[in-house]
Every structure is written in C-alpha cells, then in structure tokens.
C-alpha cells in the first residue's frame, strides 16, 4: 500500500543551549485511506508531531533532523510560508477545543465557505450550497439556519461538527485530529467519534488520530502508534496491539487502561521502575544527540 505520509527519524527541539528535545527520532507512516492512531501520555510529543506536519513548530523550536514526506515529496524543509498550497486543501486539521477554534466575529457560513472559494474556486453561492450539504453530512439539522449563526450561538458538540465539516470540505488527502473529543461531554464524545469515522471512510481520507486514550484509539483506528518521550515505541495493527503488545511500555499502558472487552479487570498504574528505566533510555539518547548537534 502507498503511504500518504511518512515521518522518518524526526528530531525536533527547542533551540536553546543545550537544546531541549521534544521529538527524538520519531517514525510514523500513514497509508492511503487509513486511520492511524497516535497514543501516549500527556507530554509525549503527540501535538508536536501534528504541528511539525502542519509546519507550525512553536516559537524557538526547529527541526534538527529527519524527514517528512507527503505523497512522495519531501515537505520537512519547506517553511510555513511555502506550505499553504498543502494546508487547507490537502492537509486539514480538527482541533482539540471546539469552543475556541472558531472565529467569534464571523458567521459559520463565512468560516465554511472561505476554503471552498479559495481552493475549489467555487462561487460564493455554490460554496454556500456545498456548505449546506456538508453540514447535513455531519448531521446538523437545519443547516441553512446554522450557517447564519455566530459560533457563540452553537453548543460545543455543534461547533465540533462544524469544524469536522470544514476539515473535510475540500476532500483533503490527510486529516489530522488532535484529541478531537477530549474537550467534549462524554455523551457527545461517542457521537463525534462515530461521525469522524464515518466521514473518514465515506471520503476515503487518510487520518492521523491523536489521543491519550487507548480505549478511544482502539475503537476507530486501523494502525496504532505508541509514543513516549518523543519517540514512537511501537507500531501495530490495532487488533494485534491489543492482543499481543510487544513493548513493555505498551503492556503497562494497556493494563492501566479500562478495557471495554474485559470489564471488571483491575487497573495497574505504570510502575515506577519502568518509568525510571525509560527515563534512562531517553537520557542516553539526549547525550548522543547533544554530542551530535551541539558542539
């Protein structure tokens, strides 16, 4: 199968002396039409991966090494300003917090149609028609009315639906969803998750699905990557990962996650010994990198 996105040995750090490492030779690939999960505890560097793909490394940080290939061409050495041809059309994004991600002073219509007009060269009226059908696709009732509203007039779940519609508006090749359900009510979470899965398969889009929750990832992903300390420790088909995890950390993580298939099992926190051990591995990596990039 062809890979739509490939990340090889990506190293990102804050450019201080010595550098603070955030991604430590991370590897990741996303096949065409796949949903690829990226799980790990908070601070593992998941958001960083998505930001590097989008070209939005935070201020002060930079890519030290490694490559990102998108559809076979290398994009990691393009800076942000030479990427717009990708952003918005080929690669889109579903944000974590729908409450703050929409522009408060613009009507929903304008926020949806701008990409359609910009990238599909639609006329404003046709763009609105397209927006209506997109909103029905994400199961918003009375889309014509919603298009006329401002974000503050919508609930969190509604806003996330709008954001999903925007993400799929131009039939992108890759959608990155960074914890798209974390900020939502539990009841809404399930619906949104189902919606994302449905949108992904009906559009045939590839997707990077980021979450700290193995349970969520297990439900919708084809392939799962487990991340810790800026490294991808393990990549497996979703079923295989749950039945036969290979990395000790994955095993520990699994026994710390509530299982829908085995309710009643006792949860075990990740042991201190394992944490210290993995800390050591990271430290030795940092030493090597320092010798390499900081002389």
């Amino acid at each position, binding site marked *: 199968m062809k890979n739509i996105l490939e990340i090889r040995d990506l190293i990102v750090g804050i450019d201080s002396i010595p550098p603070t490492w955030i991604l430590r030779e991370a590897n990741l690939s996303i096949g065409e039409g796949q949903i690829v999960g990226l799980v790990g505890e908070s601070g593992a560097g998941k958001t960083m991966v998505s930001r590097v793909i989008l070209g939005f490394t935070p201020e002060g940080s930079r890519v030290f090494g490694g490559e990102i290939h998108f559809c076979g061409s290398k994009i990691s050495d393009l800076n942000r300003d030479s990427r717009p041809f990708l952003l918005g059309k080929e690669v889109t994004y579903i944000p974590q917090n729908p409450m703050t991600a929409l522009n408060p*002073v613009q009507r929903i219509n304008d926020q949806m149609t701008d990409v359609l007009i910009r990238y599909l060269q639609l006329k404003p009226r046709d763009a609105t028609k397209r927006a209506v059908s997109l909103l029905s696709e994400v199961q918003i009732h009375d889309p014509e009315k919603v298009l006329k509203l401002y974000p503050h007039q919508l609930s969190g779940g509604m806003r996330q639906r709008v954001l999903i519609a925007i993400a799929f508006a131009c039939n992108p090749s890759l959608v990155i969803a960074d914890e798209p359900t974390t900020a939502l009510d539990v009841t809404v979470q399930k619906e949104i998750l189902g919606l994302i899965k449905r949108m992904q398969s009906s559009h045939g889009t590839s997707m990077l699905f980021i979450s700290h929750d193995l349970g969520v990832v297990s439900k919708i992903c084809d392939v799962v990557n487990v991340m810790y300390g800026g490294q991808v420790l393990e990549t497996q088909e979703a079923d295989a990962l749950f039945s036969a995890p290979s990395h000790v950390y994955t095993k520990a993580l699994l026994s710390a996650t509530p299982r829908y298939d085995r309710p009643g099992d006792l949860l075990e926190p990740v042991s201190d010994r394992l944490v210290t051990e993995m800390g050591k591995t990271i430290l030795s990596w940092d030493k090597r990198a320092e010798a390499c990039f900081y002389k």
Partner: protein
Amino acid sequence: MFGRYLMLRLLLAIPTIFCVAVIVFVLMRIVPGDPISMMIPPGASPDDIENLREIYGLNKPVLDQFLIWLNGIAEGDLGRSISLKLGVGQLILNRLPATLELVILSMGIAIFLAVTASVAAIRYKDTLVERVLDTFTGVAQAIPDFLWSLLLLLFFGVILPLFPITGRLDPSLSFDPITNFYFFEAIFTFRLDVVWDLLAHLALPSFALAFPLAASLSRVLRGSLSEAMSQDYITLAQVKGYSRLEVITKFALRNALIPTITLSGVQFAFLIGGTVLVEYIFSYPGLGNLAISAVVQRDLPLIQGLILTFAVMFVITNLLIDLSYALINPRLRGR
C-alpha cells in the same frame, strides 16, 4: 434589545450635558470680573453700563439668568454674543462644519495610522520594523497635540514650506459654497482645486491631532492583536492556509478591535478638546478658535454656548463609539 440600550445611553447623556451646563454657568459667575466692563467704550456713563447689563440680562439674579438661558436653549436660542454682537447659535453653526471636517479627518488618519502600525508591528514581530514602530509610538504618545502642531508647523510649514500654516482655504480660489461643509461640497461639485487646497490646509492640524491619538490607539490595538494571535481560531486560520498577513487582517484584527474600542473611547472624545489649541495655532476658522477668542474677550454667552456644544459633541462621539462597538461584536447585535 440594542435599540433600547441606545435609548438608555441617550437618556443618560442628558444629565451629563446638564451638569456641564450648570458647572460652566456657575463657574462663569462666581468669579470676580464683569464681562460688561470689557466692552464699554471709554467715557460711558453708569446709565449706559446699566443699560448694557439689562440687555444681556446680567442684572438679574444668577438663578434667573440660568433659567432664562435654559429656556432659550429649549427654544433653540443660545443668546447673543457680547463681543461679536451676533446670535451665539448662528456663530456656532457657522463654525461647526470646519471643526467637524478637521475632527473627522484627524480621527480617520489616527485610525489608519494605528491599524497600519499595529498590523505591521505584529506582522514583523521581533524584527527591526517592530522596534522602529515602538520608538515612533512612544514619541508620538509622549508629545501632546499642542506640541505636535508647533513642530509640524515649524518643520513642514516654515523650514520646509510644503503646507500652508494659516486658514482653511486660499481666498484667491473663487469658491462660493452654500453650506459651510466646504470639503464635502467641493467634492460634490467636483472642485478638485478646492478639495486639494482644503486638504493642504488641513494636513498639518489634522496630523498634529492624529499622532497622539494614533499612538495610544495602536498601543491598545497591538496588545489586543497579539493576544488575539495566540487564540485557537488563529491557529485554525493558519491551518486553513492563510498567510500571516491575511491571518492578522482577516481574523485577528476584527477580534482585536472589540477590546480596543472599549479601551479607547475616551481618547476619541479628547481629540475634540484638542481642536481648540490646534485651530488656534493654525488660525483655522473653527469652533476652537472661536472659543479662544471668546475666552480672551470674556464673552459669557458665547463661552457657555461653545462649552455646551463641545459637551454635546463629546456625548455624540461616545455614542458613536458604543454603536461601532456593538456593530463589530456579534454578541451585542440584536438577535
């Protein structure tokens, strides 16, 4: 809902204006000095003086004078100017258009400068451009409009004589306007030579008024802009593929204007007060110039009328600012 809010604001404005009227009226009368003494010709008899006092109502008790004045206002009569021997209302109406043109142009320039400077400062954050803009803003804000007038007059009126430094319109241009809104009338009658000359006369005074306002506006705007730039909707806009400049102007700016308007309403109103000295310095025939001569001549009815006019302009400016705030913030717009 918004209409009711506006009505409420208008109602609240009335006591403000009334207070100003009372304060001015009382102030002008509790202090020693007699306006009549300024206007009597040498050798006038006490009878003549008494006559004059009677004509201007200055022989009545203060409260009566005030009631008569208020009554006059209600009937649209502001009294007669002592020094110019003309109706105060007429004098003010004649001069008002000149001041309004100056005020509107200055505010426009100030807004333009402030928006450009803050957008540029955010766009070129952490570069030389930002530091240069910082310095300009600091200096523009530190120097009040009075000094800006003098500096501009010196540098661009005298040392480098680019602009005229007195008046409103070159008298050699034959222009017979129907209204006193020269500028608008010149535009509608396609007198481009007149438009050009008016602009040349307005250039120095309006920039002098605009600089300090622009500086304080851009301080606030820059703060709000850089705060807006860290919001999630900005990230989304960037991910949608907008360039940095587009993100600032199309997304951040409108959001940043909301807090800016709330924080700088007073500054706009203060620009109106600034016209007094600036008009005087450039001998610009507006209300401010009239006010200074009224003050120097101790022309009580005229001073009262002028202060009242300024107070009304203040209140209207504040209202307009509230209105634009509501227009720009969808949360306040009528649902």
